[in-house]
């Protein structure tokens, strides 16, 4: 199916994105920009305690404050049962969802929502929230996985039992689940090793750090129908989650995805939408809720911190003979960390016979974790890619050559079992080796020690469901309607795919991101799936439009449909005089030819192509202060087919920047009371543009055989290698193996001093 030798006219070019002018003029409407007549402003009351029983809530003073129109607590939500409900690709527990939205009998983390108000101004809402009186009984809290796994740990959810445990137990526990992937024989493997390296790692909780805080505007109508505008990665999943947790039909809620100011996985769960809806129902007015930065950090879905142990053996020839991994990930207050994905991605770039990977999902008094760009994989790669670096170094083998020796290719079995189809991992290793960066000598920086490190990464990418319609306009241009919120330029890519099929220019196709009433079901934007799956739907919808166009032409020419062909935007007859018409001409004649042309498709494509990346980084370390500067960074990646190369490069560069922050400075800092101390961008330190150099990207196109255009997802894998690559570079600069994230200056300085 892959068109490897195809010459594309639009795909692979760099048109200006269709929503671009709105975004550079400030006209684009993000969720917080939305205004409606009579709009009320909401504010949420949040727990100051990491773990406490709620003894009573008294909202009377708040409700009496002039300007306050509604107050809600969890009592306003229906009672739901615990269980697992499939919601598209996600599995949700409605009871836990409800408990996270507004706490029931306990608060489980600093920032846990307890009540919400709606008032005529945001300042009055803020004052009202302060008037709500909550009586807490503070309970002991636990915030690191190893303590939480102990017998005597404070228990967060008394009903939790470890799913996947080898023996059933009725004891209360914080271990929500465990999973094991294993094959071969570890003993045999380690015995065959000439070198064994064993290391333990701790990684801190970090946040996706999107610049736009969560927001929702809800208008509930007396007929039970509601509209919600929200910054979301998935209008349909937001709608379904709302319906589930409020006990109302999802179809009664129309969700309009506003332009979204970043998500990275963190805007798949809902936090504000049901609150806004209930406040609107109670007050009879539209209600807007916007989170502050502090609320975003305290109370949305960061990614887990973790404790990871990696033991690997290799023989003199450089072949890995055995790998054993033990990982415990913070789930936060409710089960569901991506430890499973961590287990399946760690070591995925390598061909291994003997492996055992154990993963544990552990409750701690921190916010419930959510997806963050290749969820689970970056933590895991920090462990594996640095141990691999150490094996290579001890065996005297270049780290890229070591990866080439062990690299996965078509037919290799993943750690989880399935065999790879055509993949491009070895190509990324080769490209890194041949890059100008890797071939250049290490630069000298006065007063600092310089080192170069490499690391690889893997991400599955996702398929899932998408719908699209492609409508031909009377002037021969086309509209493409999809349901995928555009977080990285995907609507432009969708337009380009349709343009390619229809023989139009990119500017002649108008992409629209539609609400839940205007397009067929579409799963969330995430999993690096939009260009692949929504692009697939667009491709099929455009083909459907082409078939209809051919039939219309056949009608006009009184020919048989088989006699008509469509190529490069021109429809022609293969018989009887070989007439032809451009799409423009045909569009003008459609009323006589049978009517309008609208192609449609709904897909759930199976041929997902995984992605691999290999990164090279040079760092300069100040041995006295421990500060690490990134001097140069090169990211190579198998991108399948780059529809719009600028936005593929953008995905790689942005993910690298996030990885650099994760590596060097980002972490959640809780005090002894369990309160988050750095709930702001001052002390939650994401990289500024002064902290990064230009980021070189090398795009390798190994087409995905499972997609008509060869597309692979590209957005997630580039966040996987950076922390490990940087750790490996630090080692080569100062001779110290860092085993904690972040590798902040105090830690690096301490390690350097201790080495002396």
């Amino acid at each position: 199916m892959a068109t490897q030798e195809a010459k594309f006219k639009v795909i692979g070019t760099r048109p200006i994105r269709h929503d671009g002018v709105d975004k550079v003029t400030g006209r684009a409407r993000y969720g917080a920009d939305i205004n409606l007549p009579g709009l009320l402003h909401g504010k949420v009351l949040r727990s100051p305690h990491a773990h406490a029983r709620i003894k009573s809530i008294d909202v009377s003073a708040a409700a009496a404050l002039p300007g306050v129109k509604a107050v809600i607590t969890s009592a306003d939500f229906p009672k739901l049962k615990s269980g697992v409900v499939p919601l598209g690709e996600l599995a949700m527990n409605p009871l836990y969802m409800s408990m996270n939205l507004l706490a029931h009998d306990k608060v489980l983390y600093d920032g846990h929502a307890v009540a919400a108000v709606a008032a005529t101004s945001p300042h009055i809402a803020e004052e009202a929230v302060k008037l709500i009186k909550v009586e807490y009984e503070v309970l002991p809290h636990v915030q690191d996985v190893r303590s939480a796994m102990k017998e005597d740990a404070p228990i967060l959810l008394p009903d939790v039992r470890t799913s996947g445990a080898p023996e059933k137990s009725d004891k209360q526990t914080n271990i929500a689940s465990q999973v094991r992937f294993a094959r071969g024989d570890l003993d045999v493997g380690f015995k065959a090793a000439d070198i064994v390296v064993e290391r333990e790692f701790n990684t801190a909780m970090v946040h996706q750090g999107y610049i736009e805080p969560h927001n929702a505007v809800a208008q509930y109508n007396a007929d039970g129908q509601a509209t919600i505008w929200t910054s979301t990665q998935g209008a349909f999943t937001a709608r379904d989650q709302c319906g589930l947790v409020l006990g109302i039909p999802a179809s009664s809620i129309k969700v309009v995805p506003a332009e979204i100011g970043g998500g990275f996985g963190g805007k798949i769960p809902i936090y504000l939408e049901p609150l806004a809806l209930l406040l609107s129902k109670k007050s009879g007015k539209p209600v807007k809720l916007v989170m502050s930065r502090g609320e975003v950090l305290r109370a949305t879905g960061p990614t887990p911190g973790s404790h990871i142990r990696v033991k690997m053996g290799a023989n003199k020839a450089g072949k890995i003979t055995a790998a054993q991994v033990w990982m415990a990930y913070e789930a936060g207050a409710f089960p569901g960390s991506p430890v499973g994905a961590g287990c399946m991605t760690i070591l995925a770039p390598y061909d291994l016979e003997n492996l055992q990977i154990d993963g544990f999902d552990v409750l701690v008094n921190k916010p419930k974790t959510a997806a963050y760009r290749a969820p689970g994989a970056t933590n895991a790669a920090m462990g594996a890619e640095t141990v691999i670096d150490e094996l290579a170094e001890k065996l005297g083998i270049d780290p890229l050559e070591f990866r080439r020796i062990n690299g996965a290719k078509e037919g290799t079995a993943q750690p989880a079992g399935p065999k790879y189809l055509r993949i491009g991992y070895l190509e990324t290793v080769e490209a890194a080796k041949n890059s100008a960066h890797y071939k250049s000598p290490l630069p000298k920086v006065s007063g600092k020690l310089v080192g170069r490190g490499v690391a690889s990464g893997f991400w599955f990418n996702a398929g899932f469901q998408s719908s699209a319609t492609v409508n031909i306009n009377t002037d021969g241009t086309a509209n493409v309607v999809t349901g995928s919120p555009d977080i990285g330029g995907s609507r432009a890519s969708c337009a380009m795919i349709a343009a390619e099929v229809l023989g139009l220019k990119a500017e002649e196709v108008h992409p629209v991101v539609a609400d839940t009433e205007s397009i067929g079901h579409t799963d969330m934007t995430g999993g690096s799936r939009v260009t692949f799956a929504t692009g697939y739907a667009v491709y099929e919808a455009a083909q459907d439009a082409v078939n209809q166009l051919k039939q219309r032409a056949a009608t006009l020419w009184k020919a048989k449909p088989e006699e008509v062909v469509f190529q490069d935007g021109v429809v022609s007859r293969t018989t009887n005089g070989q007439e032809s018409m451009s799409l423009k001409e045909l569009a003008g004649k459609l009323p006589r030819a049978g009517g309008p042309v609208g192609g449609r498709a709904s897909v759930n494509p199976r041929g997902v192509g995984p992605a691999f990346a290999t990164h090279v980084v040079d760092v300069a370390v100040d041995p006295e202060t421990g500060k690490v500067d990134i001097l140069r960074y090169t990211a190579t990646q198998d991108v399948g087919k780059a529809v719009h190369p600028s936005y593929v490069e953008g995905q790689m560069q942005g993910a690298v920047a996030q990885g650099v922050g994760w590596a060097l400075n980002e972490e959640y800092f809780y005090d002894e009371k369990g309160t988050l101390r750095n709930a702001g961008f001052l002390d939650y330190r994401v990289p500024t543009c002064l902290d990064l150099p230009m980021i070189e990207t090398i795009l390798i196109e190994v087409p995905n055989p499972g997609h008509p255009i060869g597309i692979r997802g590209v957005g997630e894998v580039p966040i996987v290698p950076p922390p490990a690559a940087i750790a490996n570079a630090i080692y080569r600069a100062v001779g110290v193996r860092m085993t904690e994230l972040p590798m902040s200056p105090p830690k690096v300085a301490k390690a350097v001093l201790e080495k002396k």
Partner: protein
Amino acid sequence: MANKVLVETTLNGETVEFLCEPRQSLLEVLRDVLGFTGAKEGCLTGDCGACSVIMDGRVACACLVLGPEVQGKKIETVEGMAKDGENLHPLQQKFLEHAALQCGICTPGFLVAAKALLDRNPKPTEHEVRFALAGNLCRCTGYDKIVHAVMDAAAVMQGR
């Protein structure tokens, strides 16, 4: 009950009058009172630059300016950057050409801060660009294409 004050200011070249409570920041005034939603709220602590506006020729965080403080001042926002309905400012044009935005939420702040830079320093080096924009956070792009766009816009504005 709110003690509103009447403020007169110049916004993107036009004289504007508004009522606000002293506790309403310039950012709130722009977005909620005057309807100019280009400047965005990202942190309310002056750490992200998404609310950047130019005040009397100097870029500042609107979230840290009180509404009444702009009495008699000249305010410029992203909405005032385009030359007219057909012609964008070179910075806006170059951001589009270089794909210097992904989700776009930080873009108004960057455009305003970059304009303030180029108004003072028409020929900045890469380091000077990065230093001037260090107060604007972007989480999507890794800044690479933003810096390229600003330097390319500088060249165009200089006729290079």
